């Protein structure tokens, strides 16, 4: 099982509410290899729920991922009190392993509300494991609103690839 899938499986088993967002989420909607973006970055959107966050940290730990806040290991004990402080500050925590995988545990997705994005989610499976994924429209909307250089680059590439694909299919209906 790949390392990200190991984490997703642990999140599911611990009943963690999460959504895959960002470029990796967009990959699940790809029609073919040309629309898959190769990145080691994974982004999870989490609700502002301290108990859920503690369960998420535990799942990361059981999956062999260490937790980081900036360049420092996340404080311990990783309990409800710490989760509430992290939520207050909407602080970003990153889960990482020794093989280069990094998963950003984000409490914000531009100005979108977790519950709204959650209600629109899709649930896909990979090797029989369910993965909660934000809708493509939400992923793209968040990228437009955040508007960092890498977001704009993604949008430019994604839009072009999507349009080419649809144009090709219109010319060559199966």
């Amino acid at each position: 099982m790949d390392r990200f899938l190991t984490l997703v499986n642990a999140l599911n088993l611990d009943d963690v509410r999460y959504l895959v967002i960002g470029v990796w989420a967009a990959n699940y909607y790809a029609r073919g290899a040309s629309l898959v973006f190769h990145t080691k970055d994974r982004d999870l959107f989490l609700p502002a729920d301290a108990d859920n966050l503690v369960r998420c940290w535990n799942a990361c730990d059981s999956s062999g991922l260490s937790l980081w806040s900036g360049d420092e290991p996340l404080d311990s004990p990783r309990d409800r009190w710490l989760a509430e402080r992290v939520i207050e500050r909407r602080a970003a925590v990153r889960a990482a392993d020794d093989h280069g995988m990094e998963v950003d545990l984000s409490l914000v997705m531009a100005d979108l509300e977790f519950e709204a994005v959650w209600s629109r989610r899709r649930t896909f499976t990979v090797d029989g494991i369910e993965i909660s994924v934000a809708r493509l429209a939400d992923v793209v909307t968040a990228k437009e609103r955040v508007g960092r250089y890498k977001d704009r680059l993604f949008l430019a590439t994604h839009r072009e690839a999507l349009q080419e694909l649809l144009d090709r299919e219109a010319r060559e209906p199966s």
Partner: protein
Amino acid sequence: MLDEVTEEAKSIRIEIDDDYLHAIELVEALPENQSGSDKTWVHRLVQESEAHFARARRKR
């Protein structure tokens, strides 16, 4: 030249216009993009790509 490209890249603005939204709607409506769909191929593709580049060795 690199500076010029960097400056140019900063000015990229992508609007989510009607065409882009329509394309997203079409993609989201595909049968393979409904809940319950199997996406194992996406993981396999990325794994194979990562393995390929991990094996790459500089020749010169």
